[in-house]
């Protein structure tokens, strides 16, 4: 082969390799720079570089939205669905993690100049006054050339010839992808917010447990943070305000809730400067300091408040009475009260836990019989003795709806609430327990297994079983207002020995993945089962299912997320212990503890346990 030929071969090979890399980067598009038109896995792209991928995504979906909320990561916790409802708009959360005022300004300018914008919500945290236009990773931290108005050539060069490992990484992640949010996909594409589905179903109870789980709050780092870019914050806000005024855009400026100990890391002088100067530019809603900002349970981590808190903040702005909002949440700041409001921030806050939390014990019963035949079958006599003791000790039986109202709306609970529950839906609950509950006026909840309602023989195999009450009987109990009917699944509490042709480990005895079952299939089965259970209860009795007791008490993060997405607001396990309900934190209703009651527990012992 001549040297000339070799050289031609060299050039062709170099070109092939170059094209190969560029082609892969376009097709896989790990940063979403080219709109990710093939894989369309935007949650991954947003996670890799929200500044670039969100703009590339929005360019393709701009017709679907007419309003935007912009800011750094804390912005994620203001739910856009709520804004949509209050403002009759279609909001998108364009937040970028770690965004400084430069990112905010450039992005805002771009959307105003290129999209139809009705409303703009600007969330300004202190991060926006701490730094400005800092050097960041060129691939993951840079702005889109359209928002930055920088060279398109450089942008294309960078992302076309980005390290192919990024593409391989995305393909690998795609292959191993699973249902729950994880480190490479932390966004909800439809809303643009963080996917907090897992964190929003974690069980949150008493403070000591939370501190154990998130030790950063135990001894919060004391540090002095400098607000070095106040000028830029003010100037850019001015610019955005002017742009909104010019384009007839409704602008709402917010200061987000901040963990009180974090706020103490800023100098009071600088806080005052930010507030007074900002108030000269625009009025704004300040949520930075309120009674709940000293309660770390309302924070995901040291600088990010929970969605629940964002929900309260928006409810406050728009006067939503359906949602619990503590009185001191949110102050409308104008140049009149800016200095005063800033001064309030520097004062540490402490709040009386009792005023918004409540200890609630839950009792778990199964079958009742005139005479006990085993520890789980309680004799009528013992059951009545226990009810009598509870009533005598001042306990009031409460419904799950009352728990929900306490958490969501802030309605009060009786002085000493107790939740009495029965699993499975045995006929004895109707025949023996119901009259006693009425007698002592104790509310109770029965979790029924959908497939065995009204039956005394096992489904399919027709083996005799303990009889279960019927939907008609359920309806009668519901009407009394004493008993509530909720779900114990439709058919996910199977009795293995009676299942036809199912060997060991094949029967679905609880909400857990079967051996060898794919995650997708499991989730599909779970969704179908719960939907069927609640559909039957609704159709047969008119009652809405919002709570579920886990068969055998077994649950997982996946099951919690699936159930919460289906609208199940309270779940119960079989772990013994009391519960702490927290107003405004729906997480306190997840995976609640229950005291399992057995025949041998005397009334006195029962009172002692649930104290």
């Amino acid at each position, binding site marked *: 082969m001549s040297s000339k030929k070799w050289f031609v071969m060299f050039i062709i090979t170099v070109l092939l*390799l170059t094209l190969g890399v560029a082609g892969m980067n376009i097709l896989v598009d790990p940063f979403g720079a080219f709109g990710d038109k093939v894989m369309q896995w935007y949650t991954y792209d947003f996670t890799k570089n929200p500044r670039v991928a969100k703009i590339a995504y929005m360019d393709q979906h701009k017709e679907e939205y007419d309003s935007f909320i912009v800011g750094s990561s804390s912005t994620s916790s203001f739910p856009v669905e709520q804004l949509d409802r209050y403002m009759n708009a279609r909001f998108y959360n364009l937040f970028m993690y770690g965004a400084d005022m430069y990112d905010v300004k450039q992005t805002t300018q771009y959307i105003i100049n290129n999209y139809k914008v009705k409303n703009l919500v600007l969330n300004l945290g202190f991060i926006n006054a701490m730094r400005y236009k800092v050097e960041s990773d060129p691939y993951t931290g840079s702005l889109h050339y359209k928002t930055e108005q920088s060279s398109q050539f450089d942008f294309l060069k960078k992302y076309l010839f980005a390290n192919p490992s990024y593409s391989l990484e995305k393909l690998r992640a795609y292959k191993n992808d699973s249902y729950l949010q994880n480190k490479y996909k932390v966004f909800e594409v439809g809303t643009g917010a963080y996917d907090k589905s897992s964190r929003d179903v974690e069980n949150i109870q008493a403070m000591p447990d939370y501190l154990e789980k998130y030790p950063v709050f135990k001894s919060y780092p004391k540090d002095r943070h400098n607000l070095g870019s106040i000028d830029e914050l003010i100037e850019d806000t001015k610019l955005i305000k002017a742009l909104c005024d010019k384009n007839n855009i409704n602008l709402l400026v917010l200061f987000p809730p901040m963990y009180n100990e974090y706020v103490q890391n800023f100098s009071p002088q600088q806080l005052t400067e930010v507030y007074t100067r900002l108030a000269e530019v625009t009025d704004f809603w300040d949520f930075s300091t309120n009674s709940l900002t000293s309660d770390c349970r309302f924070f995901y981590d040291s600088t990010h408040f929970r969605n629940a808190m964002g929900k309260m903040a928006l409810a406050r702005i728009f006067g939503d009475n359906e949602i619990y909002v503590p009185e001191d949440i949110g102050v409308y700041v104008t140049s009149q009260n800016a200095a005063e409001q800033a001064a309030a921030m520097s004062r540490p806050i402490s709040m009386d836990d009792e005023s918004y939390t409540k200890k609630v014990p839950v009792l778990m019963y199964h079958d009742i019989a005139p005479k006990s035949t085993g520890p789980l079958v309680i004799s009528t006599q013992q059951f009545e003795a226990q009810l009598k003791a509870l009533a005598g000790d001042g306990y009031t039986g409460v419904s799950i709806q009352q728990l929900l109202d306490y958490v969501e709306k802030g309605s009060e609970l009786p002085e000493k609430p107790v939740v009495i529950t029965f699993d499975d839906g045995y006929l004895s609950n109707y025949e023996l327990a119901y009259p006693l509950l009425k007698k002592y006026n104790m509310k109770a909840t029965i979790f029924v297994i959908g497939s065995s309602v009204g039956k005394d023989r096992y489904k399919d195999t027709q083996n005799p079983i303990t009889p279960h009450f019927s939907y008609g009987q359920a309806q009668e109990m519901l009407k009394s207002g004493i008993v509530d009917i909720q779900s114990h699944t439709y058919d996910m509490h199977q009795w293995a020995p009676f299942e036809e042709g199912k060997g060991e480990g094949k029967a679905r005895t609880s909400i857990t993945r079967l051996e060898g079952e794919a995650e997708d299939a499991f989730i599909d089965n779970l969704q179908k089962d719960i939907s069927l259970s609640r559909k039957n209860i609704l159709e047969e009795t008119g009652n809405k299912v919002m709570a579920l007791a886990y068969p055998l008490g077994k649950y997982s993060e996946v099951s919690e997320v699936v159930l919460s997405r289906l609208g199940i607001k309270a779940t119960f396990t079989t772990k013994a212990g009391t519960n702490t309900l927290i107003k405004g934190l729906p997480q306190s209703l997840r995976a609640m503890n229950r005291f399992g009651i057995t025949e041998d527990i005397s009334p006195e012992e029962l009172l002692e346990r649930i104290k």
Partner: protein
Amino acid sequence: MSLSSASFLIFLVSTVALYFLVPKKLQWMVLLAASYFYYLSYGVKIVGFLLTTTFTTYVGGLLLGELNSRRKIRVKQLGREASSEEKKAVSDRFTGNKKWVVAGILLINFGILAAIKYYNFAAENTNVLLGLFTDASFPKVNWLLPVGLSFYTFQSAGYVIDVYRAKYPPERNFFKFALFVSFFPQIIQGPISRFDQLAHQLYESHAFSFDRLKYGLQLMMWGFFKKLVVADRTAVIVSNVFGNYQKYSGAEIAFGVFMYCIQIYCDFSGGIDIIRGIAQILGIDMIENFQRPYFATSLSDFWRRWHISLGAWMRDYLFYPLSLSKPFGKLGKYARKKLKGNLGKILPVSLVTFIVFFTIGIWHGASWKYIAFGIWNGGIITFSVINAPVYEKALKRLHINPESTCWKLFQILRTTVLVFIGRYFTRGEDLMTALRMLKRTVLHFDLRNLAGNVLSLGLGAFDLLVILVCCTVILGIGYLKERGVHIRKTLEERNMLVQWLVLLAGLAVIAFLGIYREGYIASEFIYKQF
């Protein structure tokens, strides 16, 4: 512009294209323009230093050339009748003047070098001494550091000395001479070329040749392979281990130093291969700077294979002049008289050898660690020269055949260990750190520690495997070359598919294991700093 940056590649392609497009007579001007463009990319102010050296050595060359020709004329004028004493007197008069000129020029140029590289070091150490007696001290100066300073200074100094020795006439065209000093691929990290070997090639016209293009590209690929795939990869472990040596046990430190041995060879020789490849495309053959130093059988053999152009420079312009100088001649006579046997014979040579290596040590930089490095090399080589007869006797006694493979392997291993120890000094933060690391290596050496921690030194199993495979390839090819196999020729004889596969593999390895090793940022070559 780093040799491995995209902007350099664009610059290179444009330069090569222009070079072969312009009329052949103008080719050298393209090179000159490209060279200054390239040098300017490192900073505008530093060009002043380059111009000073170019100008002084150019004028010095002219003066020396003038004195040479005048001397020739005067000696001729004396005619045949003149006695040899008369001729010698005339000659001596000129030699005296020439000595003044050459001394002046060298003083200026080495003066700049000394001021920039050694002033602060000297001031610092002098201040320590001064501090014992007075409060006065020399201030620290933040010099601009012209890149490639010692390379082009040594190259032009060699030229001046050669003209002084009337080895060749001086270059009269200033611009052509400026090209010799600044020729772009080599100015930053050598090799230190000789005027009579390189200059005429720069000025001659060169026709485009696909053969040269191919060989040049192949050489460059080999260089990029060593630099990007191996050197930059080992660098991760090296900077980690040297930066945090306190954290590591002896075996881990030794592993880090061993990685540094690989790194510095692949980095430096890779750079030189790229430079020689570029020159080859332009029609210019540059001298070799490395000849498989990892196969050296002794430390002096190593220095004949490693950074050859520096060693040769030292030999021609320091070793020989010193050895042949009057003081050393006297010393030789004295030693032979006073000391009996071998020692007396070789004492002056050993002393000069020691001085040369000491100089090589401080050529690398102003620091006690480089002085220690010089002493280490000079000491070992001098010691082995002095004891050579002892070794010979010992070999005979032990019935070891010095030509046997086993003995050769032992020698290579021994040399590797000696070079390896020297590397503690060149890479350690300072002399004390180097010594502390050495101490740790010796006193806390535990291989089990290394086995447990090898993956936590900065590289994963895959990268370590890449290094292992690449080093095996480099050693294998080195071995074949040592045996005289022409690898590129052998490859050319294979069919097109095989050739293409080799090419594809080479480019793919450079691209995916080199350029894209990590979030790629073009890194600088180590030897540029010297």
